[in-house]
């Protein structure tokens, strides 16, 4: 036994530290598709296309579907994708940021507490943007919006009269307020996304492990 002892300790020491991971090696396809789909929708709708246009509303609805899917997945998905794996805990998030500065990081099997809080903040803002967008369009589906826009383009303004009648004046004030909130939330989400990307970079450096790869397709076998 005595002869074999040093070897087993060395093996135990190396085995116990580096191979425990933080986060999965590869996020499942639903997490990845919803993440990059929503990111594209935000990029297009906040920066590239014209607010209220057919493309804007269609992309917005696609974003809603992806958000809904991620929500279902937060209950029905595999362990690390479920909300219970990364509960919103502001105190733990602050503690994590402190640990990050001291370079004494703990490992988590899903998002770290700060990342988790960011995820919930982004999702909440998205929900707000989508709700206010629905209020502005009166809940009309992209198909209806497209029809009306086409009719208006063809010179038939009567569709606008009809939509104006259902709204009335009280609805008009609400829609205006919704529009303000919609635009402010869209600006805010861009700022949060910058923080989010910076956070991913900082955490990746501190862990010595690329967090982006599991969100893309690579990094399967380390």
């Amino acid at each position: 036994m005595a002869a074999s002892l040093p070897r087993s300790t060395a093996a135990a020491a190396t085995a116990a530290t580096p191979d425990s991971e933080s986060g999965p090696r590869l996020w499942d396809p639903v997490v990845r598709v919803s993440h990059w789909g929503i990111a594209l929708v935000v990029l297009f709708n906040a920066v590239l296309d014209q607010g209220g246009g057919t493309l804007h509303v269609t992309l917005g609805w696609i974003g809603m579907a992806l958000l809904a899917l991620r929500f279902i997945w937060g209950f029905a998905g595999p362990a690390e994708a479920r909300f219970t794996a990364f509960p919103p805990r502001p105190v733990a998030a602050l503690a994590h940021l402190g640990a990050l500065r001291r370079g004494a990081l703990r490992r988590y099997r899903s998002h770290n507490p700060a990342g988790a809080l960011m995820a919930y903040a982004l999702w909440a803002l998205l929900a707000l943007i989508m709700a206010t967008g629905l209020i502005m369009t009166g809940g009309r589906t992209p198909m209806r919006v497209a029809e009306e826009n086409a009719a208006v383009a063809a010179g038939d303004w009567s569709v606008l009269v009809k939509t104006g009648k259902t709204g009335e004046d009280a609805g008009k004030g609400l829609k205006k307020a919704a529009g303000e909130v919609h635009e402010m939330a869209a600006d805010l989400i861009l700022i949060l996304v910058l923080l989010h990307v910076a956070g991913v970079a900082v955490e990746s450096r501190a862990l010595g492990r690329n967090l982006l790869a599991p969100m893309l397709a690579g990094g399967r076998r380390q």
Partner: protein
Amino acid sequence: MSGGDLRAARIRQTRALAGFLVVQTLAAVFFVGDVIGDLIADPGSVHFIFEALVTAALVLGVAFGAFALRRTIEMMRAQETALSVAQGELAQVIGEQFTDWRLTQAERDVGMLALKGLDVAEIAELRGAAQGTVRAQLTRIYAKAGVSGRAQFAAFFVEDLLGEGVRPATPVAPAAT
């Protein structure tokens, strides 16, 4: 290698299921929006009733699709665990399991030594600690792992080695699934 073929097939299957699920969710959300619009406009019409039925089927389809996808993913992972154990990555599997159990660094080291078959006196000597400390650490490890003692602790990983691992990885929380 047949294990590789199986894995590739499983990955293709999860991709297909996920793609299907995304398309189904898109359709479901668009239809739900349309149905709500119709409900406000003309709830009694045949068109509305038909569309509501289609929408209900779509929403059910999303639920079943999510369930099927999760099962496939979990089976794939169970197989991967069995495979990587067989390929000699047991130490890594143990490390990940220790992380899941939230063992501290000291507990990880002691747990690893215990798995290697060292007794309390040997572990204490190696770590330059009192035997009472090691005994207390082992008790905490068994409690976190939800096992009764050393034999069950070791058996937990042997089961992975034998490749029957279709059950979820954490035995302490069977209620989660």
